[in-house]
Every structure is written in C-alpha cells, then in structure tokens.
C-alpha cells in the first residue's frame, strides 16, 4: 500500500489537474447541454432560449472564452432539463377529458 501511495498521489493530482482544465470543463458542459437539448427536440418540447444559449456556448467555446462557454452551457442545460420535465408532465395530457384538462 505504501509503495502505491506515490502513484496514487500522482494519479489524483493528474485527475484534479484535468478537472480544473477550463477548456475541458467547458467542453464537457457544452456536450452535456447539447445532449439534453437534443433529447428535448426528440421529446418534441425544445425551448428557444435553450437553443440560443447552447449556440452562444458553442460560439464561446470555439472562440476560446471558456468561462462564458461554461456559463452559457450550464444555463442551456438547465433550460433543456426544464423542457424535458415539461415533456414528462405533459405526456399524458390528452388522457383527461377535452377541453377542460388543466
């Protein structure tokens, strides 16, 4: 165990370094937002603001503005998740009597 310790320390330092890499972090955030937005399109409930924020995040990432990309991507992901929640809530809307269902 004592022999493995330096290796483990080095590995955790490398992992921490990777996680702290702003470019990689922003790329992962954009990827997540993109995936959630794609799911909302597939569900038939995409939101305009989610699409706009995702496009802004992709532009910022391409321009190397990782902080902006991270922020925009996180907002886009939150909006896309909200639209997916809406899709799930509305999935059974027509099962109630028309036209009085809430």
């Amino acid at each position: 165990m004592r022999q493995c310790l330096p290796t483990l320390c080095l590995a955790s330092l490398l992992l921490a370094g990777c996680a702290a890499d702003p470019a990689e972090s922003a790329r992962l955030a954009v990827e997540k937002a993109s995936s959630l937005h794609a799911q909302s399109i597939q569900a038939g409930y995409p939101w305009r603001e989610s699409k706009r924020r995702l496009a802004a995040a992709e532009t910022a990432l391409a321009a190397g503005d990782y902080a902006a990309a991270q922020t925009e991507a996180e907002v886009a992901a939150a909006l896309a998740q909200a639209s997916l929640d809406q899709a799930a809530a509305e999935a059974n809307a027509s099962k109630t009597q028309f036209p009085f269902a809430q």
Partner: protein
Amino acid sequence: MRALICCVLAVLASGGVQAGPEEDRLALRKVYEDRFPGVPVEAHKDGVYAIDESARAQWQEIEEFPPYEIAVDAGEALFTEPFPDGAGFADCFDDGAVKARYPLFDEAQSTVVTLEMAINACRTSHGATAWANDAPELTNLVAYMAFISRGQIIAVALPASTAALAAYEAGKQFYMARRGQLNFACKSCHVQLVGNLLRAERLSASVGQVTHWPVYRFKWEEVGGLHLRFQECNSQVGAEPFELQSEPYRNLEYFLSYIANGLPLNGPATRK
C-alpha cells in the same frame, strides 16, 4: 356491491373515459356557446372579429380593399401555368375549389396530407420541382384556391383507421400540452382564456382558426399560411417552433380542422 365499487375504482384509475373526435368537437362548441351567448359558433370563422365589435368594424373597412388580392391574382396565374409535361394543376384539382377536402388522412402514406403537400405532389408527378414550404408561389396558389373555395363547408371525415385516429390524437395532444418557457398550451389562450385580452389583443376561439387561411397579416407584411402562424404561436411562448408542414403541425391542422367541421371556409383573410 363489491363489484360496483371495483368498477368505479377501475374507471377512476383509468383517468376517465377518453373522448372521441366527435365528443371533442361538440364539447368545444358548447364551451364557446356558453362563453359567448348570442354569438353563433359559425361566426367564429371570422376569428376575433366575431367577438370584438370595434376590431370587426376596422377589419370590414380593410376588407373593402383587401391586401391579399395581389396574392390571389398571382395564384390564379400560377394555377393556369403548364407543367413541363403539358399538364396543369387542373389535372390534379379540377377547377381548384378543393380547399374543403384538405387536410385529409392518406391511408396509403399513413400521414396527414395538407393542401400544400398535395400541390407539391401534383407538381412532382408532372415533372416540375416541388416548391419550398415557405415559397411565395405556394402561398399564393393556396390563396387563390382558398378564394375560389369560399363558402364551402369544412367536412373533415371522422378518423376511420387506427393510424388516422392516432394522428388526430397527436394533434389534440399538441393542442393541449403546455410548451415553451412560458408553459402555455394552445388551449390556455384559445379555450380557457378565450375572449380575454392578452395585452391589447383579444384571444380568438380555436373553433374558427382554420377557416380563413392563408392570411395577410400586417405584422408579416405579406400573406402567410396556417403553419407560419403555428410557428409564431410556439415562438411567442418560448418554444422552438417546428418546420412548416412538419408532422406535428399537420396533425395539429387535422385536429383543428376536424373540430371546425360545419364552419364555412372564408379565406384568404386579413389579420392584424
């Protein structure tokens, strides 16, 4: 007694009996009859002008020199233009007064076919290229065909197959589902809040919303189709709109047309 309780529980658990298209249509007519006593349901073919006197007076003045006339004239010229093989639209649509036939559920294609789709199918079957769904030519031709179809009564057939009923239900689901960041459904404005003001605009009844298309909208400064309005509605509530002539919009048009059965066509028209 136990059997009766079981039956009641089963009905409650199933969420109640699901209404069919005709029940939907009658229920919706009743909503508007109750909401606007003294206004015949057929009057909603004029949209908000059926329930807003001053807006109606302004609209009638505009209709004396309607801005969609240019589109109708252009559409008439297009209707008589021959295809590469010498045929014309008359070979597909007789005199062109066929607006009341659409939308229809095509069992062979297992999809809802709108007049716009039928026009493009006619073109491609005679060697011409299909128009883009946002092409002015397509809108102008529909404007002409709507004009000569005026007075025809909407009579969409009751969905006869499982696939047709599924398309109707998908359209109904679209109409009832809340969407966009504002969390609004079509029915939020056009059933539950119908007749109320949304800022300065009064909300029209959904029962007459398919009768008068295409429309010259002053906001657009041109003639546009029903699906363009669907896109606008979706955008207004913060939803990303679907494509013109996409399946969700065709299903929605099918649903709205069925519930408008019995109303006369009066397109094209002018709207604010």
